[in-house]
């Protein structure tokens, strides 16, 4: 059980690190948004799953309720993060942020 929780936790932190590197390194706004969306949903839900599982180790009714709340945060993230990404993309398109093209590549 402990090993399973550790693997989930490590996978979550790993995907968070990848998302952060993507936010720092990608060349324009839309690609950065792509990296941020991955890091918001997948990694957060992985870590939340690990915390909920670890909390259920001594099984009582109160702990079950707390774990359900943690999973509710995960469900909330998986709804709101795509919504935020969508609205940011819409704002960028309306305002006119230019996408990165192949011609702008630095040699």
């Amino acid at each position, binding site marked *: 059980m402990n090993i399973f929780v550790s693997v989930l936790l490590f996978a979550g932190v790993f995907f968070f690190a990848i998302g952060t590197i993507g936010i*720092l390194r990608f060349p324009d706004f839309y690609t950065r948004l792509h990296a941020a969306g991955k890091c918001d949903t997948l990694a957060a839900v992985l870590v939340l799953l690990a915390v909920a599982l670890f909390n259920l180790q001594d099984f009582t009714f109160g702990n079950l309720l707390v774990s359900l709340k943690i999973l509710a945060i995960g469900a909330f993230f998986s709804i709101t993060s795509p919504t935020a990404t969508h609205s940011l993309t819409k704002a960028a398109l309306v305002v006119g942020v230019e996408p990165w093209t192949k011609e702008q590549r630095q040699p």
Partner: protein
Amino acid sequence: MSTVFLAAAIALLLLILLSLVRAVGGPTVLDRIVGVNVIGTKTTIVLLLIGLLYGQVGMFVDIAIAYALLNFIATLGATKFFLRRKSVNLQDELIKEKEVA
């Protein structure tokens, strides 16, 4: 087991510092909003890990829920504001202000 959670929380804090680079120095305002949004997500997770470390998850879960809600509302509000304002480039505005002055 608490060592693993402590290591994960410290790693997340370092990643928050890295995201802060994008939030401070992003070329447009929307880049900053993305950085702040990601920092908010990570803070929610770090709050839960702190709760595990102190052995009071039941209390910290509620704080984490409130933080997630606030983060979402703040992102949507800021996006809506800049959608109506139709300008996200701070450099352009500074140049315009100088021309007007």
